[in-house]
Structure formats: structure tokens, C-alpha cells
């Protein structure tokens, strides 16, 4: 009721201390995006646009040049120059930081600062997606004080600054006068109230306690749509997929993995896990906004139980084979997805027993190869095809991949694609990688879930960015948002 220009936001998780670098989930991304700003950011179409950097340029796929804006300062008035940026990025490149974008910066060779406004980033290997990584919510440039493990990171260069932190309850942010684009910011501030329970969050919106919520639970979609003056802003978001333990029979056999790819009814997965709010996937998901988007990647397999049975018979798998299906009870959609798969597997003669421990136990089991088949969820932070690498490479090298899978061939093609500057030629390389994936099935995407924000119709100028960026990019929209 202040002057009506304060946005009250029901956030889907508790945000504790902000720490520079590591990823702590979607809710923390949104807060980071208000307080911090990196060299670049995403716009409403999912394109990388300049932020602290006034302009940027890819010298080649392993060398990038950034030119900083003039007169940049943090909320506390500390100036930002090329040295600040260098220190920040070097900190993120350290292994001990555990940074969300460590994968991209691990190949950092050198950062040069020819002058106070120019930053030159050199990589030892080509990486066409570096800009995507630098637009990640965890890559905001931070002051020197934040560059230590465990150091708090509330002061940044973002459009809002922290006013009050009611630990565990809410965060109050007000517009920062130090922001380089402050005139474009319509809100006077944002108050984030934490609502970890999704139906409590929906209730708060319906009851008018908050103006906006993130991560609407799928079972609440209809309820919110049916409520007058509420807007449900849903887009296809992250995806869910299946992992195979390729270290042991029967999933060491690509034929069996293929059989699974044909055995699962994706429509049922969407219906059961997401209450019908999602898209079935027959291949690799991808954000259409990316320059290297290729619709052919999405057509690799389809639901065909007869073919699955044939493949299984070909692989010599006996009917009634028992396997264990790892999922987690922490997220109901994980469990529902597994239940739906279980029925499909049974239909092709595979008897899957569910193992549904809590999240950390699930993670350890997954990383340790303690499963036959596992349910997993993916929210890539880059939109380019390079994202597939992290999912193709097997655990333990990459925690997103199938246990024991050797993806060197796939990686080689993806890296080759990353090294090519031209989109068209690069696409050909990625297509090769995708063909191997279609054949080998190192991981099996099943559905893209609907990711929704919801808000009152007083909220204007906000837009949920479709695709993976719904999680990593949409938070940038708040500075463009206004409220009547």
C-alpha cells in the first residue's frame, strides 16, 4: 500500500545468505538477478544482451572482448573497473568455488585488462556459449569482499539493493540509484516472501497476499486460471529424463536403452507428473530462441511398445526382468513420473521396482551408480546445443549423466561445433552428436515441463521466457516490470 510500486513476490524457496558463484536453485537466481549484474544478461527473447559491458565481441570462439560502461559502481559506491571484473571471473574459475559456470570457465587461460574499461577473456578451448554462461544469474560481477568461500554477497551492481533481510521469512529490496539503467526501472522495490510449499504459495496469490509467484505447482494451474484477475504465465521449461546405469547389464547394451526409449509413453508422463502441463519429448529439447536451434534434434524416438519389445527380444532380455528404478520422494513429480514409467515398462515385460529415497540419498545413489534406471531433471543454464554435453558425459565425471557412460565421441562432435563460428556449419557437427545420441541413448529426455509464473493483472511488462531460460533468464524481467 506504500505507493503501490512495490512488487510483493512469493518466492518458491528460502534464500539464505547469497554466496558468490555456486548455484542454489531457481529462487536464489531470481534474487541474484535483482541485486547483481554480470557483463551480459538475457532479454525477453532469450538473447544475450549487454549489461555491465556496454558492448562485447567474440574475437574468435575462444577469445571474447568486453567493453565496460563508464562510471559503474556497486550499491555501496565502490567503483567497478576491468580489474574488478577480472578478479570476479578468476574467482569463479577456481575449482574450490564450486561455481555454477565452472564448466565454462574451467578452460580459462587468461584475462587481460588492457585498460580500465576493457576485458579480454581467453579460453584454452573454443566455447561458443561463453556468453550464455556469463549471463547466468550466478555470474554477476561482485565486489572483492565477496570473493572468498562463504563470504556474503548482498552488495552488487544490480537494479535493486537490499533494504531488509528477515531471515527465513522475507527479503526487502529497493531500487538502487547506482544502477546503470536506473531510469528504465519502474518498480520502487521488490519484497520477496518465501513460500516453500507450492500450494501455500498459490493460496497466498489467490488470497491477495502477494502480487506474483514463481514455480506454480501444476495441480494449481486450473485453480489460478479460474481466479479472476490472475494471470498464469506458463511456458515449456526444463525437462525430465532417464538415466541408465551403463556400467552393468542390461543397460550396458545400447539396444536395451533404445528399447526403453520406445517403451515409455511420454503423454502419460506429462499427464501423471505434470497434471498434463508439459510437452512430450521425442528427442533433445532445445530453446527455439537460440541461434543454433535445430528442430531435427527433437525427433529421435517415439512411443512404440512393439518396437521396444522387439528390441528387447533382440538383445536377449528375458521377459519379467527385474530392475530397480531410482527416483526421489522429495519431489512428487519425480515419483509420479517413475510410477508412470513403471506401468509402461511392465507393458514391455520389465519389472521395475521403485526406490524413492530423499534427495541427498537419491543424489548419492545416482552419482555412485547405485541404480539400473533413474529419473532425473535437467535445467540447463545455457541455451545452445552444448548443454547436451553435461548430460551425455557419464557419471562420475559429470553428475548429470548416465553412470559409467563414455561419451568421448559425442563430446568431440559438440566441441567441434563449439569451435565453429558459423551457425550453419556448427549445426552439422551437433547433428552428428545427436545422431550418436539417438543410437546410443546415453540419456533419454521424456518431457518438458510447464514452468509457470502467476501474477495479478496489475503486474505489467513481465514475461516468462520460454525454454530453459524460464529458470535462468526470467528473473531479468523484473527490472522491466511495473505494477499499477
Amino acid at each position, binding site marked *: 500500500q506504500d505507493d503501490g510500486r512495490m512488487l510483493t513476490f512469493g518466492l518458491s524457496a528460502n534464500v539464505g545468505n547469497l554466496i558468490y558463484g555456486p548455484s542454489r536453485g531457481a529462487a536464489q537466481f531470481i534474487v541474484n538477478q535483482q541485486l547483481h549484474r554480470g557483463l551480459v544478461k538475457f532479454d525477453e527473447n532469450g538473447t544475450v544482451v549487454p549489461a555491465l559491458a556496454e558492448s562485447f565481441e567474440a574475437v574468435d570462439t575462444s577469445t571474447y572482448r568486453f567493453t565496460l560502461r563508464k562510471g559503474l559502481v556497486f550499491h555501496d559506491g565502490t567503483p567497478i573497473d576491468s580489474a574488478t571484473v577480472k578478479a570476479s571471473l578468476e574467482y569463479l574459475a577456481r575449482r574450490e568455488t564450486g561455481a555454477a559456470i565452472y564448466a565454462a570457465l574451467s578452460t580459462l587461460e587468461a584475462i587481460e585488462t588492457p585498460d580500465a574499461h576493457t576485458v579480454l577473456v581467453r579460453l584454452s578451448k573454443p566455447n561458443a556459449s561463453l556468453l550464455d554462461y556469463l549471463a547466468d544469474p550466478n555470474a554477476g560481477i561482485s565486489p572483492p569482499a565477496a570473493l572468498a568461500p562463504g563470504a556474503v554477497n548482498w552488495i552488487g551492481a544490480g537494479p535493486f539493493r537490499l533494504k531488509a533481510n528477515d531471515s527465513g521469512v522475507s527479503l526487502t529490496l529497493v531500487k538502487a540509484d547506482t544502477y546503470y539503467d536506473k531510469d528504465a526501472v519502474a518498480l520502487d522495490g521488490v519484497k520477496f516472501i518465501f513460500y516453500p510449499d507450492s500450494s501455500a504459495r498459490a493460496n497466498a496469490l489467490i488470497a491477495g497476499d502477494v502480487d506474483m509467484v514463481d514455480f506454480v505447482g501444476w*495441480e494449481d494451474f486450473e485453480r489460478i486460471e479460474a481466479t479472476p484477475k490472475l494471470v498464469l504465465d506458463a511456458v515449456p521449461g526444463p525437462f525430465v529424463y532417464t538415466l541408465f546405469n551403463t556400467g552393468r547389464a542390461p543397460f550396458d547394451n545400447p539396444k536395451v536403452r533404445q528399447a526403453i526409449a520406445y517403451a515409455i509413453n511420454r503423454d502419460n508422463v506429462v499427464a*501423471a507428473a505434470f497434471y498434463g502441463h508439459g510437452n512430450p519429448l521425442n528427442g533433445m529439447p532445445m530453446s527455439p530462441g537460440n541461434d543454433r536451434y535445430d528442430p531435427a534434434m527433437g525427433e529421435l524416438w517415439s512411443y512404440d511398445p512393439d518396437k521396444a519389445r522387439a528390441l528387447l527380444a533382440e538383445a536377449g532380455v528375458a521377459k519379467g526382468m527385474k530392475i530397480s528404478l531410482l527416483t526421489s520422494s522429495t519431489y512428487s513429480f519425480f515419483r509420479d513420473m517413475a510410477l*508412470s514409467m*513403471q*506401468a509402461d515398462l511392465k507393458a514391455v515385460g520389465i519389472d521395475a521396482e521403485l526406490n*524413492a*529415497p*530423499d534427495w541427498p540419498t537419491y543424489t548419492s545413489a545416482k552419482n555412485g551408480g547405485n541404480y539400473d534406471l533413474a529419473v532425473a531433471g535437467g535445467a540447463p543454464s545455457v541455451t545452445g546445443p552444448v548443454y547436451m554435453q553435461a548430460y551425455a558425459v557419464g557419471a562420475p565425471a559429470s553428475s548429470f549423466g548416465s553412470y559409467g557412460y563414455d561419451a568421448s565421441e559425442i563430446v568431440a562432435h559438440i566441441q567441434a561445433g563449439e569451435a565453429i563460428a558459423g551457425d550453419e556449419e556448427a549445426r552439422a557437427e551437433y547433428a552428428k552428436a545427436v545422431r550418436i545420441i539417438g543410437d546410443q541413448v546415453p540419456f533419454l529426455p521424456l518431457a518438458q515441463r510447464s514452468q509457470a509464473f502467476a501474477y495479478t493483472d496489475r503486474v505489467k511488462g513481465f514475461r516468462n521466457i520460454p525454454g530453459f531460460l524460464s529458470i535462468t533468464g526470467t528473473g531479468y524481467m523484473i527490472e522491466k516490470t511495473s505494477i499499477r
Partner: protein
Amino acid sequence: MKRIILPLIAGILVAFAVAGPLLVPVDPLAQNILARFAPVGTPGHLLGTDNFGRDILARIATGAQVELLTALASTMIALSLGVSIGVTAAYSRGLTEDFLMRGIDVMLSIPPLILALLVVAVLGPSVPTLIGVLALLFTPGFARVAYGQTLSVRSRPFIQAAIIFGAPRRSIILGQILPNIVAPLLAQASLTIASAILVGSGLGYLGLGIRPPMPSWGGMVADGQRYLATHPMLMLIPGLFVVSAILTFSALGDTLRTLWDPREQGGR
């Protein structure tokens, strides 16, 4: 009224528990996503279907066995463990008493969540584990009741008489003390069975309840709660069964208690 309704409910529950799958010959696991959320009274699905299109009546019937088995078994185990601890503590006094009863206090002061997690970690999730966890959670309650009751019984003259007439310790505890502390233990047990059903469903969140897709009433209530706003029947139907089971058990406890009292038994 109570005289007709309670046995009726009890009869239905027991019938389901003994012969549920035979009475409702529909596969409780058969999914039909297209037919999900069918309302009560849909032909072929008397009580409707759930979010996977599974028949709710069949799930209730199949769940009865597991539900009643876990509740009863865990209560029985907790009862025997708790009574052994409580009676031993009260009967031996001294160091043993302090050790046992403070141990019980320590158990009670550990949040149940953590206790449950630990047991599952050691045993792995399964129905026997669930029974074990519940038994562990309820043991202290029984121990406390048994302890207090034994203390008051052991000073009564008939115990002294038993000592004087040379009763060995074993038969004092089993033959003299135990029969005289049964009534309050029965009361506690009927309460515990109710909690077992409730807590059992709560533990489902930790992934250590009854392993899906096996149905259990508590689990169905917990799942149904998600659809409370849109499809309340998903929670209300199993909820009704939980409530009636609990009411039946507490009535049963009362009846047993009366029967146990020699004043209520005929002379000969």
C-alpha cells in the same frame, strides 16, 4: 446406535483386510491416465479413480492389508519392547532403572523425523522397515506407561505375598505384575494404532513409507491432499477409512479393557 455402527465398520474393515483383493477383483495398480479423476459412481469405478486413473476402491481394498498390518505389527512390537523396558526399569530400580528410563527420555527428545531417517538408512525402505520405525517411535510411550504402572503395582501386598511365597522374579513379573498393568497398556495401544496410521503416511514424504505403487490409506490421504482444492474425494475417501479404522480400534481397545477386567467376567 454405536452398537450397530461400530461393529459394521469393523466388519467392513476386516473384510477388506482379509479378502480385499478378492472382493474387488480390479488391479489396484492398473493405470489409465485417460480415465483419471473419474468421479465417485463412475461405472466400473465405484469410488472413482485417482491421478493415474487407478481404481480407488481397489486401492482401498488392497491398502487395507498393508495399513492394518503395519499399524498392528508396529504397535505390538512397541508394546512388547516398551513393556519389557518399563517393567524391568521399575522392577529393578537403582542403576538399571536410571539407565533405562533416561534412555527412554533421550529417545523421546530426539525429533521423530531424525529417528526415522536413521532407521531407514540402516535398514533400507520397505514395509518391515516402516514397521520398525513406527515401533521405535512408539516404544517410549509404552515404556513410560508400563514403568509408572509397575511402580504402583509393585508396592501392593499381593506382590509382597508372591515374594514371601517364594515366587521367582520371572513369575512375579509375568504372572503378577503384567496382568495388572494390561488395562492402561491397552488404552495406550489403541491410541498408538491410530498414530501409527497417521505417522506412517507422514513418513511417506521421507520415502520410507510403503513403497509405491503399493497403496496404503495413509499414503492415499497424503497424495490426495495435493488435489484437495480440485478433487477433494481423492483425499476424503481414504480419509474416511482412516478415521473409521481409528475409531474402531479405539472402541476395540475399550472393549478389550472391559473384558480383561475380572469384574466383568462371569464367575466361573
